[in-house]
């Protein structure tokens, strides 16, 4: 077999919001850009985002990016880097205008401006009254944005490798990234894509959990590729459980349903969030609401014959509001629960939703890792943006509407910074043959014959272990057991065998590669979680119930080699305004 090789200036892995917004920035320059995606671009999971994207446009009430920044820092439980947060909240405003100019069909206010709705954790005047900041296209904002960005890429004639699966990064002898080994899914053939700069924009990893709002394809591939290239993952213990997944199924009921005036009740009909968050109530931050729901159910106040969920009411808003503002979740509830939320409450329970951690990057999208001169040395040729990256703007807990913002702002910045990088690095790096051999070995791993463990079986076990041992509440004992089980799963990976080793569109092979990635990412989550002995944001430990700023206001870094952990300080100095010092977080 002769390996096909192609040269590009830039390789973008991932065609979700982050990857596509980066590609748009590069379109005007006279460059060869390859965009690789394992699914057709508009099938990327950005399409599923419902509620909206935050920007202090002030279309409904007076608003300021500085207030947005405060909310994001507080929401992060003071683990977010304040320079990156300031940058994101300022950039939010031009970013949303640019989306509108490019065609996103935002919903509109009577005066013709972009419709904005209230979302959790958003305030005015640094923590006072509720803000109305989340820009929305009904409750299908992600769809609207992703399709528009794809359209802009068609206009720009970006070069897509659709249904190509990235296997591993390729590196030179110093560890600089020189491209990637990919597989054409439809023919099963490998291909080397060399590039002067490579951007990982591969999205989240929600499939490590059994009940999740994330699609089948969200398997943390880019994160695992980074790990295998020696790059650590940052803050992986922080995984967001969205409070309102469809009970028992996991698909999302957007926070916009509460933003539009919906609220949660337990079996006594009590509006229980009033007890947990007296002022913000149902619009408290997600970690707070998720814990409240789990507590209600554990203490016997859950609804349904098994008392295993709570109810979300939007029926008091009237059929017209539900039809106009929440058509997507109305459809989802009708199809999957068999109820019409305009007339009946929706059974909900927390669902695994979003990974705050990821590949450590700076606000230009450059991947940074500890090296000789400090904890944040740039890895030459490698960028990361979107949910797979950790800038870190979300810290220990992400606010609703801030992820679409993150992927767009930092996707864009990566694209722009790559232009500068290419000026300074006119030549392709030299791929180390050992690196290519390693990637090829991984590619051939599942060609081995014989009987063994089926992929689906090990994946189901992994998802169950992660759900039971790294969920909303975590103790030392539970997590230690989880870690042991995850290590046993890793050992058994070697026994996985494919029955079907054919080439053409072999989805079993793709799923085997994805399983490997899930195992590495899962281990990064439990390992980092076990060691963080405090409760902060989404990481909630009954055995260490307090936040401990003295010892733990720092980012964790997990390395694949020896499951090693390292730490680095939080960047508490913003770019132009004063730092927000840590305070107790009440809503």
């Amino acid at each position: 077999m002769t390996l096909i090789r192609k040269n590009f200036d830039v390789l973008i892995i991932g065609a979700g919001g982050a990857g596509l917004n980066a590609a748009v920035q590069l379109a005007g320059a006279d460059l060869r850009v390859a965009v690789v995606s394992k699914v057709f671009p508009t099938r990327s999971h950005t399409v599923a985002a419902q509620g909206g994207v935050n920007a202090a446009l002030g279309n409904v009430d007076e608003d300021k990016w500085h207030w947005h920044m405060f909310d994001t820092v507080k929401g992060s439980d003071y683990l977010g880097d304040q320079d990156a947060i300031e940058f994101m909240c300022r950039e939010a405003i031009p970013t949303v205008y640019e989306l509108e100019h490019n065609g996103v069909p935002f919903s509109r206010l009577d005066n013709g401006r972009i419709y904005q709705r209230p979302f959790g954790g958003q305030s005015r005047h640094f923590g006072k009254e509720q803000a109305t900041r989340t820009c929305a296209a009904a409750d299908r904002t992600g769809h609207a944005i992703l399709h528009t960005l794809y359209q802009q890429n068609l206009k720009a004639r970006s070069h897509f490798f659709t249904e190509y699966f990235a296997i591993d990064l390729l590196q030179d002898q110093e560890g600089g990234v020189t491209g990637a080994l990919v597989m054409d899914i439809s023919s099963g053939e490998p291909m080397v894509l060399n590039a002067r700069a490579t951007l990982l924009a591969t999205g989240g990893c929600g499939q490590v959990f059994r009940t999740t709002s994330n699609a089948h394809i969200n398997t943390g591939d880019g994160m695992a590729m980074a790990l295998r290239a020696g790059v650590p993952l940052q803050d992986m213990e922080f995984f967001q459980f969205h409070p309102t997944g469809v009970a028992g199924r996991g698909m999302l009921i957007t926070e916009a349903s509460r933003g539009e005036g919906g609220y949660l009740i337990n079996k006594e009909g009590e509006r229980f969030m009033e007890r947990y968050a007296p002022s913000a109530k149902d619009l408290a931050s997600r970690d707070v609401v998720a814990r409240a729901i789990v507590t209600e159910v554990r203490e016997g106040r859950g609804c349904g014959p098994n008392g295993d969920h709570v109810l979300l009411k939007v029926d008091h808003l009237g059929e017209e509001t539900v039809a106009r503002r929440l058509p997507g979740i109305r459809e989802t509830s009708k199809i999957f629960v068999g109820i019409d939320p305009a007339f009946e409450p929706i059974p909900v329970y927390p669902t695994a939703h979003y990974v705050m951690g990821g590949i450590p990057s700076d606000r230009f999208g450059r991947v940074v890792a500890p090296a000789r001169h400090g904890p944040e040395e740039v890895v030459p040729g490698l960028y990361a943006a979107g949910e797979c990256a950790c800038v870190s703007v979300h810290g220990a807990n992400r606010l609703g509407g801030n992820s679409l913002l993150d992927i767009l702002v930092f996707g864009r910045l990566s694209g722009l910074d790559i232009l500068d990088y290419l000026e300074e690095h006119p030549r392709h790096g030299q791929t180390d043959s050992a690196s290519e051999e390693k990637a090829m070995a991984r590619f051939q791993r599942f060609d081995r014959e014989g009987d063994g463990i089926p992929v689906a079986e090990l994946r189901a076990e992994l998802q169950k272990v992660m759900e039971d041992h790294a969920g909303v509440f975590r103790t030392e004992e539970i997590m230690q057991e989880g870690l042991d089980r995850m290590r046993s799963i890793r050992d058994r990976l070697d026994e996985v065998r494919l029955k079907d080793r054919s080439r053409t569109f072999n989805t079993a092979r793709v799923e085997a590669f994805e399983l490997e990635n899930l195992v590495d990412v899962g281990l990064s989550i439990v390992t980092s979680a076990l060691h963080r002995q405090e409760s902060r944001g989404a990481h909630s430990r009954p055995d260490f119930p307090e936040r401990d700023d003295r010892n733990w206001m720092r980012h964790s870094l997990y390395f694949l080699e020896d499951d090693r952990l390292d730490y680095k300080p939080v960047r508490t100095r913003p770019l132009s305004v004063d730092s927000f010092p840590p305070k107790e977080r009440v809503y």
Partner: protein
Amino acid sequence: MHFEVYRYNPDTDAEPTMQAFDVEVERGMMLRDVLLQIKEKDESFAFRHSCGEGVCGSDGVNVNGSNHLACITPVAEFREPVVIRPFPGRPVIRDLVVDMSDFYAQYQAVDPWLKRKDPVPEQESLQTPEQRARLDGLWECIMCGCCSTSCPSFWWNPDKFLGPQALLTAWRFLADSRDQGGEERLDALDGPYKLFRCHTIMNCVEACPKHLNPTEAIGHIRNLMLKKSV
């Protein structure tokens, strides 16, 4: 329930075959759940899917002769045996996976992006809620292809007739108060094939899992063209 599934792997099979499976169907089960169970029994079975909630548009298939999006189609409503085939009229890559290149090319052919001639304002361009409401029923298209692959005119002329999905998209931009490409869009649709091969058979409307109405969109474009020609 009893299922018959189209199987074809070009690496190993000379001809496509139908394979029978019995799957225990529980209440509320969707067609995608059945496909996943079949894959658990036989990992060599290939089909596309991702979101599981009808938003990504990956898993369109043909069931008992009509097109459906597997993840939001309850199986209980089908007559047995439930015959599952790839989209009609498309080249089969493997099992239920078809080559949709023509379909995507048709989409691309209508310049599916907002065209503006005036410089953009510093803030958002304004649009009233009424103007915006004209886009409802258009912008929600998930490009699943259920419509175009059930359209007889598209089967016969996939290279010339644009098909319902692309035409719905064309109307999505023509109907947008912000778009300034109207003239050239209409000119590009002129001729006997691109638009006018639609014989209002309405298969597309029936097939659309998002309850969109390409036929109506096509009607709107026709009216615009008529107005333009007088």
